[in-house]
């Protein structure tokens, strides 16, 4: 055990202020799962209001005045659902948990390049999360100007918005620390022989994602500082002259521009979408290659496509702003770049589909989630095209169609990839596979109900129902013909919640299950280093007993003439 620590670590330094990337990854994973559940719960409460407006909410109604959500409260829940799901749930999950746990293992490194920064990154994230949750308890409730926090509304909103901004500063700092660490780790700590062309696609995806975080987050941080100044120091960065609020001219100097916020916000938030999806694609690619027992089709093209995707994601942001009155030149430019960026996504998706062709597919739970990711992300991507073109976007903007599109990318897209990853790498962490039967129940019901939630949103959106109505459209003449879908979607959402119970049972049941003997270090017969060169879990701090040396590419499955149907990367 040459490379592992021999001295006993105290409980606190091992489990709380740990500097081991694996434990930090687990901390990230558990925390973000809790936040995902919390964000989902907010939505399940909101869906009651949408399905049965003006009736008392069951179970949690006692928390609210009159047992119902006030419209302000509804806005709070909506804004916080978005914020929590994206910044506290999915990003920490795909980058913090998966990136932290797997990147050093997949590149044969003993740890992250900066273990102390890694620890700081987790604790900053947790602080940001606590601040966000705390904001529910301040007067006026949590931030209620949407997760995008558009001024002038956000500038004059209640205290919750200030807390939201402080929370965001923490979350941005955490992301910056984490992604810096991932980039340096990938560049500097790759095992001997692990050239750029031999990196598993998951590592490439993390690499591109980290660059997006490093370069796109700071402009939002700048915008956050400006909005804080507006709210606390009385400046007018985002307030135009002569703004009238409640019938009176606002007593500020004016001269600012609300569009400035939108530019800086979307300069982050569009790359952010790819932060959400790229690591998910990485997870899915690993699982598909492993379970089709075939090399990933077109490895080089999907690597280039992911780099291209990352690059292009910085120059499409204004397609979120078509209805702000931008002129033709600018809208033409951003429509063009938006159409171009769909090409690399299609390349990646097609390559993954082609990988399936002729494979001996093993339909285990992680593979099922990974397979479902493909069409679900496909629907999300294709429904995005009308939103990327100004003439159709003007009709669809701010309707449920946008919600449907975005959620198809992130919910049955990224969240399914997260589940696939959890089922796939669970034996790496604990040495035990999750129960297949419960896993399949979890998968099939999730797949059915998640479509029940989001598919009708396209129908409502095409009919023109706005996404921001606290009563789900009862008071809105446009919505009359499509109103009956509300109950259906709400039922699906709650059943989707119920469908997660097998997963939770499975999760704890497997952790506490007693297994005799030593666990199989490579239960999926995989080629990549994290499975082939480590001992049985749990791994010690330092990961590898002998530093691995890599001799081949990441996906040598079913090679002709080989004795087994996979050749580990480290085999000569």
């Amino acid at each position, binding site marked *: 055990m040459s490379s592992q620590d021999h001295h006993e670590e105290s409980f606190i330094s091992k489990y709380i202020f740990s500097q081991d990337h694996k434990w930090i990854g687990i901390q990230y994973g558990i925390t973000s799962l809790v936040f995902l559940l919390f964000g989902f719960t907010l939505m399940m409460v909101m869906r009651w209001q949408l399905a049965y407006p003006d009736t008392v909410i069951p179970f949690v109604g006692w928390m609210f005045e009159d047992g119902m959500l006030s419209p302000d409260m509804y806005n709070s829940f909506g804004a916080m659902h978005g914020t929590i799901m994206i910044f506290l749930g999915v990003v920490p999950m795909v980058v913090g948990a998966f990136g932290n746990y797997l990147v050093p293992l997949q590149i044969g490194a003993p740890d992250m390049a900066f273990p102390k920064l890694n620890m700081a990154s987790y604790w900053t994230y947790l602080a940001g999360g606590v601040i966000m949750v705390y904001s529910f308890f301040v007067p006026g409730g949590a931030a209620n100007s949407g997760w995008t926090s558009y001024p002038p509304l956000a500038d004059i909103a209640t205290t919750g918005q200030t807390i939201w901004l402080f929370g965001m500063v923490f979350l941005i700092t955490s992301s910056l620390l984490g992604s810096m660490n991932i980039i340096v780790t990938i560049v500097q700590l790759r095992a001997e022989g692990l050239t750029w062309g031999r990196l598993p696609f998951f590592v490439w995806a993390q690499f591109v994602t980290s660059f997006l975080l490093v370069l796109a987050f700071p402009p939002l941080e700048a915008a956050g500082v400006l909005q804080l100044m507006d709210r606390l120091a009385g400046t007018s960065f985002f307030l135009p002259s002569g703004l009238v609020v409640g019938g009176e001219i606002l007593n500020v100097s004016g001269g600012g521009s609300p569009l400035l916020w939108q530019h*800086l916000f979307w300069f982050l938030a569009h790359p952010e979408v790819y932060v959400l999806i790229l690591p998910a694609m990485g997870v899915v690619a690993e699982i598909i290659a492993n379970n089709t027992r075939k090399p990933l089709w077109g490895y080089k093209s999907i690597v280039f496509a992911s780099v291209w995707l990352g690059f292009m994601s910085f120059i499409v942001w204004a397609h979120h702003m078509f209805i702000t009155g931008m002129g*033709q*030149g600018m809208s033409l430019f951003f429509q063009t770049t938006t159409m171009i960026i769909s090409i690399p996504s299609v390349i990646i998706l097609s390559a993954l589909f082609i990988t399936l062709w002729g494979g001996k597919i093993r339909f285990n739970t992680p593979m099922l989630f990974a397979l479902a990711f493909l069409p679900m992300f496909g629907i999300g991507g294709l429904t995005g095209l009308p939103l990327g073109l100004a003439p159709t976007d003007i009709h669809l903007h701010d309707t449920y169609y946008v919600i449907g599109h975005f959620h198809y990318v992130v919910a049955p897209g990224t969240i399914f990839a997260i589940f696939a990853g959890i089922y796939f790498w669970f034996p790496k962490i604990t040495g035990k596979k999750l129960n297949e039967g419960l896993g399949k129940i979890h998968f099939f019901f999730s797949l059915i109900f998640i479509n029940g939630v989001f598919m009708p949103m396209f129908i409502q959106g095409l009919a023109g129902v706005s996404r921001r109505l606290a009563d789900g459209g009862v008071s809105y003449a446009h919505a009359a013909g499509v109103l009956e879908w509300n109950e259906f979607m709400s039922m699906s959402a709650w059943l989707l919640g119920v469908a997660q119970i097998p997963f939770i049972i499975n999760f704890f049941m497997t952790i506490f299950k007693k297994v005799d003997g030593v666990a199989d270090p490579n239960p999926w017969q995989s080629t990549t280093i994290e499975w082939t060169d480590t001992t049985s879990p749990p791994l010690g701090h330092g990961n590898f007993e002998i530093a691995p040396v890599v001799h081949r590419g990441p996906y040598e499955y079913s090679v002709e003439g080989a004795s087994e149907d996979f050749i580990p990367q480290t085999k000569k």
Partner: protein
Amino acid sequence: MSHDDIQHHVKTYIKVFIALMFLTLLTVGASYIDFDISPQFRSGAIFVGLAIASFKGYMVASEFMHLNNEKKMIYWVLGLTVFFFIFCLSIPVLWEANLMGDTNFEQSPPKIEGGHH
């Protein structure tokens, strides 16, 4: 890096220091000179001020931060950053240019041609 190399570096640092001091005074002095056609349109002064600042920045980056002799990886990172930095800065420029484009559009609406393919 040998001892002599460092001695050589130190000499450069002193030279750069003197140049930076001189340029600081120059840029302050230049700000009192009227380069502009009109007080509303100050592009001359802005150009001179930013040109001097860029040159100072270039000297700090290349000598103090040793960017004149750095590894390829660093250049890659910075090249990428500069590209997106320029894009971020061009937000207002795009905005303005776009409004000008619109004025032209209002003056001459495009001809609508009949559908023949």
